């Protein structure tokens, strides 16, 4: 990673750009998005979005390299010093999230081209890419900003654009799914600003680092307690933390395939990161952290989510919806890791953030490709798909095994880290819970595998028809990543541990 940073420094234009990279990360896609309106053409705007996302990806990699070699990066917007101005802070934790978001965005775009042309009316395609870039902007903004209110603004940018993206789905149910998400999402975001407002009332600051130092003095007040509750619930909605997950399954199931891939891999992850940041760095130093029993609450909600999501997934007949419920379950793992409130647990959360983004991206891509070819992802229509689309189905199998947590896939690494963290803290029953819930994953993954491989294809199906290469290659790249980082879990776990330590610095009593 630091090699990438050094390479960047050797470029001729580096000295000019280098200090402004944190801003450029957000500003480039933000300014690039409206250009689509000028381009109008579907192909041109796709190409434009492709260039922009890959530039963003490059910036994110350089930033990660920089944080890993030089530590925290602080960027003051418009040179206004904090706490008056808005500050961007990049440490190991959010640099990882930046890389996840931009990498998924960059890999999804080549995939999106064919899929979007099939699923979105041609005259509206340029708007799709516009919204796609705006959504990415919002997600990147949430991740980089160190200002609590600025976070709200980016949260809404990403949310509004994702409502639009979801509503572009073919089925009319995409509209209702989008509408319900809009209602829930707005409630969540509004809850969040209520919380921020209360914190501002008590401290007069919106800067997260500043808040972290000011809050402990007033943490006995009811206002701060309420602020804490509003922030956790508001962000919990965005995270799709059980029982606030109800918007997620339909939104993922009816959105266009490319949108599902992108949102499933990034949106909840960024929200998790925001929650981690607020809970640990802003409220981490306050007594609230202990008195409210927030960690126990998160653990319980995480475990219930893990089981409930996986259990409901077993009974779904629409594979996209099944995977969406599986996401609810997987979010449970991340919430659980967070609830452990130890460096190892948070590292488990963060590594699962990355791992789940990769494996769920693969799964939704494969399902999207099946939809592209046979026009349905109902379980009954997938009979014999293993023969008709061998590559796609094999890729799906890889991600399915990863969801179960079999070794040699990233899912195993996440589970390993979470179980080790639970045993470290002496909670053997949580460790057992984590392992038991993966058994439920066997059930829903295997339902698909049986239909795909052991059922004969329907009469009159036309031999072997794979999705176009532009969809297959991104899928295979991510599947390869699923396996590669499943074998070499050291790299990701190492970065996740760095990230967890960065987040946990201010937690009361310097928890290990």
């Amino acid at each position, binding site marked *: 990673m630091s090699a990438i940073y050094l390479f960047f420094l050797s470029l001729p234009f580096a000295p000019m750009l280098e200090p402004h990279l944190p801003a450029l990360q957000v500003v480039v896609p933000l300014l690039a998005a409206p250009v689509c309106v000028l381009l109008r053409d579907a192909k041109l705007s796709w190409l434009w979005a492709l260039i922009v996302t890959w530039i963003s990806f490059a910036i994110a990699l350089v930033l990660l390299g920089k944080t890993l070699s030089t530590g925290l990066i602080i960027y003051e917007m418009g040179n206004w010093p904090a706490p008056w101005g808005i500050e961007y802070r990049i440490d190991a934790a959010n640099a990882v999230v930046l890389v996840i978001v931009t990498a998924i965005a960059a890999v999804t775009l080549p995939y999106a081209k064919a899929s979007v042309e099939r699923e979105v009316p041609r005259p509206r395609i340029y708007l799709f890419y516009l919204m796609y870039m705006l959504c990415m902007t919002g997600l990147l903004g949430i991740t980089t900003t160190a200002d609590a209110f600025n976070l709200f603004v980016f949260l809404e940018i990403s949310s509004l654009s994702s409502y639009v993206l979801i509503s572009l789905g073919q089925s009319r149910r995409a509209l209702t799914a989008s509408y319900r998400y809009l209602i829930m999402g707005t409630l969540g975001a509004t809850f969040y600003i209520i919380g921020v407002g209360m914190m501002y009332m008590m401290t007069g600051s919106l800067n997260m680092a500043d808040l972290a130092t000011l809050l402990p003095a007033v943490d006995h007040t009811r206002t701060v307690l309420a602020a804490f509750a509003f922030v956790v619930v508001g962000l919990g909605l965005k995270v799709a933390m059980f029982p606030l997950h109800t918007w997620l399954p339909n939104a993922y199931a009816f959105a266009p395939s490319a949108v599902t891939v992108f949102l499933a891999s990034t949106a909840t992850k960024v929200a998790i990161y925001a929650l981690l940041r607020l809970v640990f760095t802003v409220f981490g130093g306050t007594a609230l952290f202990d008195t409210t029993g927030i960690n126990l609450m998160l653990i319980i909600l995480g475990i219930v989510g893990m089981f409930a999501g996986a259990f409901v997934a077993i009974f779904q007949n629409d594979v996209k919806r099944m995977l969406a419920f599986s996401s609810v379950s997987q979010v449970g793992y991340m919430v659980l890791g967070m609830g452990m409130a130890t460096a190892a647990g948070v590292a488990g959360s963060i590594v699962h953030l990355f791992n789940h983004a990769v494996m769920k991206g693969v799964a939704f891509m494969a399902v999207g490709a099946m939809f592209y070819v046979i026009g349905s992802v109902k379980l009954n229509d997938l009979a014999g798909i293993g023969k008709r689309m061998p590559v796609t189905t094999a890729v799906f199998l890889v991600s399915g095994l990863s969801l*179960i947590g079999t*070794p040699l896939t990233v899912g195993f690494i996440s*589970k390993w880290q979470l179980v080790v963290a639970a045993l470290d803290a002496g909670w053997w029953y949580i*460790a057992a819970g984590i392992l038991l819930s993966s*058994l439920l994953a066997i059930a829903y993954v295997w339902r698909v595998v*049986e239909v795909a491989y*052991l059922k*004969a294809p329907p009469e009159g199906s036309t031999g072997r028809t794979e999705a176009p290469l532009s969809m297959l290659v991104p899928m295979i790249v991510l599947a390869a990543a699923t396996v590669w980082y499943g*074998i070499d879990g*050291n790299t990701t776990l190492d970065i996740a541990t760095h990230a967890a330590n960065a987040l946990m610095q201010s937690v009361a009593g310097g928890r290990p």
Partner: protein
Amino acid sequence: MTPAEATAAAAAAGDLMILAILIPVIGAFAVLALGRWENARDAASLVTAICLFYVVTQFYPIVAAGGRPDVVLLDMVPGLPIRLTLEPLGMIFAGIASFLWILTTLYAIGYMRGHHEENQTRFFFFFAIAIASAIGVAMAGNMLTLFVFYEVLSVSTFPLVAHHGSEEAKRSGRVYLGILLSTSIGFLLFGMIWTWEIAGTLDFVPGGILEPEMLQGSMTAILLALYAFGIGKAALMPFHRWLPAAMVAPTPVSALLHAVAVVKAGVFSVLKVVVYIFGIDLVAVAQGTDFLLYVAAFTILAASLVAMRQNNLKLRLAYSTVSQLSYIVLGAMLANEMAATGSAMHIAMHAFAKITLFFCAGAIIVFAHKTDISDMKGLGRKMPVTFFCFFLASMSLIGLPPFGGMWSKWYLSLGAADADKMIFGAVLMLSSLLNIAYLMPVVLYGFFGKPETKADDGHHDADDKDGHGDDHHHAPPSHPLLRHLSFGRAGVADASVMCLLPIVLTSTGCILLFFYADKLRNFISPVFGG
């Protein structure tokens, strides 16, 4: 080879182990690439099998002289690498698996063609992957590596079990994978991570990595139970259901995987855990581990009783396997040198005997279209070689001289005596009687039973699910020699040479093991010496 030379050779042999695992993987992809050309594809399988066996034999002199080839690959999680190490137990397992793979491949080619199976390319592909993972289990240098290959083995054998794709195959596949994955993720992984928490390492170290002071109270027993039940492939009751379920698979799969690779990977893992993770001394003194002995003893007897009630030959053999596997678990849990030696030897003895029995069962299915024992009356006169070999293997399983099976039972009984738990010696004796009761009727029916005349006019064609009519069992003795052996006598129509050759070789193996048991014992003894 002197010990010093062995150490030097072992250092050089590290990369060879990676090769040993890669050969079947490469072979698998060769099979996939050659899928269209049947002969070339099957030749590729065979060549791969021979190459693998050749490579595995290269390790024998090194390990016998005390060398321990070792190679550390990349870290999978911090501080815990993928590591390959070869020691005598693994050498035995790898040697048996790779040798029997050659014979099974020969047999499978004959069987699959004779039975007109579909998806043969897929079959041979996953077959090779399964062997690669079995070799991986044998050569695992730490628990994590063992677990990884163990899981790959479970998943890669699923397509083999569910090969036919029928409702029954699917159901069995579900049971198979469900139990194996559930136990391994629910118990084994849990036990493994717990061990990692306590000991800080998962390497296989002679004498074990767990020390008595690390474990308080009943923790040893709980941890050991997590391993014993978590290794579902050892088929300890109540997690044995997958093994009978897997019998829907084509017979070569039952033969190799469910008599050798898969189940042996299970008991081998149990043995390895007891010897190298706990250390036999710890297990011997630990409180509360006795109940596992009783579970194993119960499994031995109960599975034998169930086997007696099975009319389907393959099912009967499956329950017999469940019972025999628990011999090995019992030996491991008795935790003394004699018993553990008996366990390790029984891996080899049972492998040869059981694979012979399955080969015979398969030959009977393909060439006489019989699956039920009650239909086999008089069949022995038609297929004398097959039934004679079946008889030899049965004798070995029962534990009579001059067959290998005698020695393992001998050492197991000595182990029970050493541990002052003679009740388990009695269990072993009782189980031998039960073995006679469920194996001998097959032979007696075959040679001395009167064929029911009705049986020949085709009502049993229901067993012949494929319904192909071209090579019926009333095939005339004038068949070409390569197809059927006839001995020039009317009414004799034994299996094809492709099938008979492996059968004869493995049953000869049962006898040879009786005479070379001493060598085997000496080879194993360093494991418990340290």
